[in-house]
């Protein structure tokens, strides 16, 4: 009972925030991008249901919203994990074996690039140079950087996160 009530409260709060976002921007020209921005902040990504709701409340065709959301790499249509792993694919990291690191993480977590583990813990992306070439190969978990990573270290690093 309690946990149900709690979940409901959360949904109600989310709905209220969602409505706040759309009503704040819907009448301003070019309001779609800030809406998508804030909705992504709210859910961590842009779920299908959000497209439909934005379309209805703001009277913008779904395809237009989708076009904008898929044009900018900032927007994600898939959920992000509690911990977002970014594997640097910049030149230095690449020659130091970032590809193999990435493969190992994919195996360990059993997900592909762009996906999220079923328990919602980790999501995985490959990114451009993080600017820490001296530490290559580098991965970033949320804001924490792990450098000079060997294949054997991958399990240990992941295990640090609960």
């Amino acid at each position, binding site marked *: 009972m309690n946990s149900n009530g709690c979940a409901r409260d959360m949904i109600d709060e989310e709905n209220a925030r969602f409505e706040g976002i759309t009503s704040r921007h819907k009448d301003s020209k070019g309001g779609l991008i800030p809406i998508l921005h804030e909705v992504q902040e709210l859910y961590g990504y842009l779920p299908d249901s959000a497209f439909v709701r934005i379309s209805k409340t703001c009277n913008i065709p779904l*395809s237009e919203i*989708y076009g904008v959301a898929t044009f900018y790499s900032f927007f994600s249509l898939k959920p992000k994990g509690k911990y977002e792993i970014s594997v640097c694919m910049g030149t230095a990291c690449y020659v130091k074996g970032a590809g193999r690191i990435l493969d190992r993480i994919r195996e360990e977590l059993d997900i592909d690039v762009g996906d999220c583990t079923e328990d919602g813990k980790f999501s995985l992306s490959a990114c451009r140079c993080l600017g820490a070439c001296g530490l290559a190969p580098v991965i970033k978990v949320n804001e924490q950087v792990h450098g000079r990573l060997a294949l054997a270290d991958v399990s240990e690093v992941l295990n640090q996160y609960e």
Partner: protein
Amino acid sequence: MLNLVIDGKKIVAPENTTILQAATENNIPIPTLCHLDGIHDSHSCRICVVEVEGARTLMASCATEISEGMIVKTASESVIEARKTIIEFLLASGKHDCMTCEKSGNCQLQDLAYELGVQRPSHYIERSAEPVDISEMIIRDNDKCILCRKCLTACNEMVVNQVLGLGYRGGKTAIVCDNGKPMGESTCVQCGECVQVCPVGALTERKAVGKGRTWELEKVRTTCPYCGVGCQLDLHVKGEEIVKVTGVPDGAPNMGRLCVKGRFGYDFIYSDERLTTPLIKENGAFREASWEEALDLVASRFKEIIQEHGPDAVAGISCARSINEDSYNMQKLFRSVFKTNNIDHCARSCHAPTVAGLMTSFGTGGMTNSFSEFSKAKLFFCIGTNMTEAHPVASTFVKNAVRNGAKLIVVDPRRHSLADHADIFAQIKVGSDVAFLNGIMHVLISEEKYDKAFVAEHCMNFEEIKTMVAAYPPERASEISGVSVKTIHEIADLMWDIRPSMLAYTLGITEHTCGKNNVMSVANLQMILGNLGKEYAGVNPLRGQNNVQGACDMGALPNVYNGYQKVDDPAAGAKFERHWGVERLSKRIGIMVPHMLDGLVDKKIRALYIFGENIANTEPDIRHVEHCLESAEFLVCQDIFPTETTRFADVVLPAAAWSEDEGTFTNAERRVSLVRKVKTPPGISKPNWMIFKEIAARFGHEWNSKSGREIWDNEISAFSPSFAGLKYHRIQKDGIQWPCPSEDHPGTKILHMNGKFTHAHEKGVLMPLEWTPPAEVPDAEYPFVLSTGRRLYHYHTRTQTGRCQGLNNLLPEETADISVADAERLHIEDGEMIMVKSRRGEVKVKAKVSDRIPPGMVWMAFHFRENCANWLTNQAFDPETLTAEFKACAANVCKM
């Protein structure tokens, strides 16, 4: 005007013209893959580049306006080089495999590659490989897409369905449906406008696959067999088979646009279920018969009954889906041979109040203005018209008007999808129209916001109507209609501020016990605003069936001959006696459909002849209708399919269908357009007009006309002043709108021009009208209002659409649409089977929970037999026109 030179040719063209337009106007061809004339805004393909003297680079001719003294070369060496490079890139990106492509032979990319001599390049630019997306009617192959964006323009700007978009970026850019859904799962309604504009094979008609190569197909222009818009179709025919259908480019009224039924609903004529031979019922079962036997039987039974009980003991129901010439011959048979005016048709169930109401108000019972004005209107007032589903192509022009800056007022009990485009949506209570409209007129008149000059010069009864609407202050109108006082004021103000406005309505106005009053009420509103007899104005009823205007025009009505010449006018009678070479035509006005049915029970009617109507499903209270049909002493059905109605027939006559005979349809805007023949009728079935002629012959009447053309040119047109100038040779392309009194007359786009109404006194008649509630209103036992109508994917009782591949899958079953609030209150889930009951009966049907339905309403259609709304609807009629109140009865909704 500006002077320029294109390819050495001196040209004068108006300012703000693009190079492409100027060249095309002057027969200088410039290729383009993305240009859509009139609405184009994409400039994406760059094939149209030209060399402009003095310009730094080649210029896209579709995006560059001409200037004084400009010198343009459209085919210089550098232009050709650039075009070749573009074509090479297009061919390199994507899988342009012409061998099995349906577009081969009519593909602009293929044509340009051929013209420019571009070989398929050896390199291949990788694109995100997407599977071919197959929806019910349309195949989408993004690997063949050249991203010209014509489909986007078609979807978003022409038909304004707003499904297609451009997704992703860079090399991954692709056309997407909604939020990246397969087309069949998206909100796409499958109108196929995108298919029609696609220059390559990225969008093709699924039903046409493998049916024939482009060069094997012959194009035949005809008129659509569905709603009253009367769209012009090009049938692409191989032998006797229609392979696909496209809209006639720039053809009036649809300007190339079609809806899902018009484009994909053609194959019912090839159904195995067609009637192919006459049938005679013996001992309760049908057996096949020859024409001789069947027609002899029909003639002898009609003769016996007429001899014994008089001519008014027989009656006929004509068909609003068949050609004018058929309805003409049927009424001629009843009037000149049987000597009765007992002839009617399904306008009784839809727009009879329009004909009678507008006849009273204006003197002519038709749409006053034209579809061609829709997109340029400044303000639209749409009441009781779910246009996007019932008249889809007409709705695209309304949506275009809105995109062009027009304001839109939608008044309807349901928040149907046209309301999504509206500036003001008034969710009116079912059956409160007169009170609501009186309320608006109250505001207009009391605030002196009415066209005083128009009313004084062109209208009668202003003082009467002023007194009447004085009794409907907005507060009272609001209480009756459920529309807020504020909204009533807003509507009145908008209608005063923006004039003229076009008013459109459909059956939400007519199918009430006060149907005729509703019609005259919208006429009142437009008259006091002076919105008549001019462009972008008028009262515009959208007729339901393809030829219901025509069936009325042809005199398939109990009170008029063809051309609305009254049967009780001795002069008209004498005229038709002379034309038809007969004596003693009946001056007695005939009876209407509901009385014909009741007459079968009380034996006032002994023989009924039903042509092309499935009245066992279409009339209110099916149980009652079937009881009437069962009671018939002799029933003839003439149809193209066995239907729920033919079960009751003694004789069934098989008829030629649409595309199996040549004739004419008249659309809602009074435009008479040709219907052409592309195949022979199945079995020994015959054209309808010929069957009537052969029955007449059995009564000793020899009719001369031997084709649709002869019937029209030598009889209908010759005997009707309003069609006198309308001859087949004049309507080989676009049809002509009546009245057309002489062969040098262009036809009439707008009725009552300059306020000159067609009444003898030339005035419009303002009719003071009191609001009356529906005959049956909700109560404790039946707390819901049941309202009915049509859905996009089906037509009438599905005799046609039910036999078209794909349409049934798009809408496989009926639903009862209820509001979210009622569903929550009654714990009904979307898709759950529920029971809908009225005092007439009950049906089991799937619930569709919709936020477009107001609480307290249940909405259903009459397309499916099992859960047809007409098991529930009420036999309450408009007292004068006997149109049933399909839009309102009391019902209840229960969980099973």
